[in-house]
């Protein structure tokens, strides 16, 4: 029998949250006075409470009551990067299994609770975390915490649900990759090409055969190793009262047993020193595609902030240099897309990452010509410092984008950011310093970062060639 103990957690952060009397409503996004030294006209200020339970579960709360809903996210520190070898796609398959019922909430009960309360829910698997989240009316918060805790403690994973979800995930891969032109390009193809370390370079959506080979015992092993409270963050944002919310969190999550400490594998990548190139024929694609990726500086460093601004200048928006060159001047394509982390954003990952861009173009363009075109734009940034005006515009875009991220109807952007900073940095309040990080970047740092990270020997080019059955546009 397992010994259940309830020990009151009274860490400093917890005390601050427990002891505070009824607080006045603080707007999540305040506008402090101008910081003349750094010239930040407005600053993102999100109020947070941060508590770590005895079992290691990190709990982030943020009150913002403008709409009577609450967004709850449970983030586990396990992404597809470190899924088991010979089980590609397993981290994602397992995400599906976590929706299949728990000891006190049989299959279907989770979705029934959320939907019949008037909410929505989902989950996703990314490089370095797997998340589960719900957006529900305020009145459903306690029940949601109850059911998330039950799932964290006691999911029910048997042959029946495994077989069912192998079918669902197989269909997911078919609809998104196998029956789609371009399919895995570039979001899976580029990391597989650019990275050397298996953890970063395997097919993370999964080989269908390996997805189908997964067993119930694989699942139990994976759960026991990674799905423990000490490897998780619980974020609760929206129309909440801190004390009541924390009391519920303790009531339902304190009893979830702590797992053994996890030793994470080495996911580092060597410095790339020679250009890489790959191509494949896509028989469903009617036009060629060009994609290129570059390894970026480690997350959180000064160079990483500079890279974020380089991304703004080069690629984000129709004022960007690559858009002007490729779309407006050369007329190669109608749009260029990309950024840092193609399946998330530049804040919500924790390991080697690419800055990548891709576009579809007409036949008759030599990939070498396209590389030269892209390179001509990058070389300008490797040669001349950016002007203060362009740098300020990049910062304005970042700031505006951050506001969009945290001010959406679902608050998903906000909980995702808070979870990432809690999970990877043990500092959810760090999201309030993101703007400062960008504000400190100088034109000289931009130049140095471009020289190291946008050099030709750091790039990987992945080309799509239209297949033999590709045809010109036809209209039904």
């Amino acid at each position, binding site marked *: 029998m397992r010994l259940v103990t309830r020990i009151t957690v009274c860490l400093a952060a917890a005390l601050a949250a427990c002891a505070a009397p009824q607080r006045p409503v603080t707007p999540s996004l305040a506008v402090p006075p101008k910081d003349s030294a750094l010239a930040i006209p407005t600053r993102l200020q999100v109020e947070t409470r941060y508590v770590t339970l005895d079992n290691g579960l990190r709990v982030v709360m943020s009150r913002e009551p403008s709409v009577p809903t609450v967004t709850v996210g449970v983030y586990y520190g396990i992404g597809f990067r470190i899924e088991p070898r010979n089980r590609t796609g397993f981290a994602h398959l397992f995400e599906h299994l976590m929706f299949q019922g728990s000891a006190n909430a049989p299959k279907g009960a989770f979705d029934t609770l959320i939907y019949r309360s008037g909410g929505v829910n989902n989950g996703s698997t990314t490089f370095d975390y797997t998340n589960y989240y719900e957006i529900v009316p305020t009145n459903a918060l306690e029940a949601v915490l109850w059911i998330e805790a039950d799932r964290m403690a006691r999911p029910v994973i048997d042959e029946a649900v495994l077989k069912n979800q192998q079918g669902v995930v197989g269909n997911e891969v078919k609809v998104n990759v196998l029956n789609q032109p371009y399919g895995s390009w570039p979001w899976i193809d580029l990391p597989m090409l650019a990275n050397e370390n298996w953890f970063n370079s395997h097919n993370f959506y999964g080989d269908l055969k390996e997805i189908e080979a997964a067993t119930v015992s694989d699942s139990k092993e994976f759960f026991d190793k990674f799905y423990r409270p000490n490897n998780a963050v619980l974020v609760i944002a929206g129309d909440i009262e801190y004390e009541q919310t924390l009391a519920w969190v303790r009531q339902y999550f304190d009893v979830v047993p702590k797992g053994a400490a996890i030793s994470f594998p080495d996911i580092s990548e060597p410095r790339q020193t020679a250009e890489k190139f790959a191509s494949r024929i896509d028989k469903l694609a009617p036009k060629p595609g060009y994609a290129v990726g570059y390894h970026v500086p480690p997350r959180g460093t000064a160079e990483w902030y500079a890279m974020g601004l380089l991304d703004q200048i080069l690629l984000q928006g129709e*004022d960007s240099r690559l858009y002007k060159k490729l779309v407006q001047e050369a007329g190669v394509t109608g749009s260029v897309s990309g950024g840092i982390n193609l399946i998330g954003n530049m804040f919500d990952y924790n390991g080697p990452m690419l800055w990548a861009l891709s576009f579809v173009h*007409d036949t008759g363009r030599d990939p070498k010509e396209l590389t030269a075109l892209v390179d001509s734009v990058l070389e300008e940034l490797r040669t001349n410092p950016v002007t203060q005006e362009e740098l300020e515009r990049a910062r304005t875009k970042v700031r505006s984008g951050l506001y969009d991220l945290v001010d959406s109807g679902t608050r998903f952007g906000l909980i995702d950011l808070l979870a990432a900073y809690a999970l990877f940095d043990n500092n959810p309040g760090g999201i309030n310093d993101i703007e400062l990080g960008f504000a400190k970047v100088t034109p000289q740092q931009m130049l140095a970062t471009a020289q190291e990270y946008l050099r030709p020997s750091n790039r990987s080019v992945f080309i799509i060639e239209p297949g033999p059955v590709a045809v010109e546009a036809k209209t*039904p």
Partner: protein
Amino acid sequence: MMLRSLFAALSLALLCSPAAAQAPLGTYPNQPAVGAPKPYAVPRTQNYTLPNGMQITLIPSGLAPKTTMTLAIAAGNLNDGTSTWLADLTGAMLKEGANGRSAGQLAQAAANMGGALDVGVGWGRTAISIAVLKENGPDAIALLADVARRPDFATDAFARIQQDKVRDLAVTLSQPQPLAVAVMARAVYGTAHPYGRVYPTEKQLKAFTIEDVKRFYSANFGAERAHLYIAGQFDAGTMRRAIEAAFDDWESGPARLILAPNAQLGPSFGRRVLLVDRPGAPQSTLQLAFAAPQAGTPGDIAFRVTDALLSGAFNSRITTNIREEKGYTYSPGSSIQQRPGDALWIFEADVTSDVTGKSLHEIFKEIKELQAVPPPRDEAAGMSTWLSGVFVLRHASPAGLIGELASRDALGLPASWLDSYIPSVLSVGAADIQASAKERLTLDSLILVVVGDLRTVTPQLKALPELRGAKFAVVKAE
């Protein structure tokens, strides 16, 4: 041997780290009750009309110091006539230079404000949108006015935009879902109405000239057709002055076009099955359609709950059946597509090819079951509650508010519509749902489109009793 050693490893793991199966079930409390939701009201709006007919809606809302705005002009694919996508070309050309500022200068001005110009063209409107840091609200109004009122329509930019559209068309039509959409639209609306012509031919697209774009613009853009929505944080007085300065002297222009389609739906058209071959496809892309109640008419709200319960919500019957029980598909779902004088219910799913027939069998079974037996009260009430909750979520951001208000206005629904929505949805009962399913989802008038590997799929379809005697047609891609 392999199996045995795996089990051994597993039990060892359980011993070392007490987890999953060993938690004390008896001590975990019962599920806490979910009480009544807090009351919710859509944020109030300020509405007025300029002397030239342009309508303005201001919606103070939002947390971030940003102002979000959409200028919706009733000029969309409905106005294409037979020139399919001329509205799209015109919309794309708006950003390519205006009032002497080049495309690059327009984009740069938008970026300096913390925003990006977006032009979206739909069936009924061209929407020019931008979300900027709030101190730039008035400048953004002026930018929208330039783009909407003073486009340069330069010939060299047009050649490039046209080529981009040709490329986009090819890529779009290489995907099975847009093919299904196009075939369904043609079957429902016929080729005489713009709704039946979702995509142009490449030849048609290449034949348009900048003169066609200018003609489309003159015939369809003007203050009488314009509605500016502004949501987020802003000073209303400042914005009103900026709007006046930017739009007061815009010519009224043409009146809005009303052109309801004559949908080819109902028992007199019989059951139709349209097939598009995609040799070797691992999945069949399905679209199943029936006529739906038009927005704001009797039966509209009840049918929305029926849709949610049958296949619109994730915990709906069809999704539970063919995804969560059978594993035939990943993303089944349905929705009601409402336009003025028109409404269509469409179910969509991509199912593994060799279970195409089985999937449809289950879909038909669920429809018939709902028609035969009213849903349990919990299930019915749960779906109404879900729609109420989603209504709140849809209105919970400035962009969401604008989208919902603009849809309401485009459908000609009264201002009170948003206030009455939640009570109306909550008043729908189990019997209403059953009646709605019986009245609307009449299997003898279904239209089914399947894009897939016909060699595998056709025999499965022909074997379905519900499709016996249906009119089958294999549709060529052109």
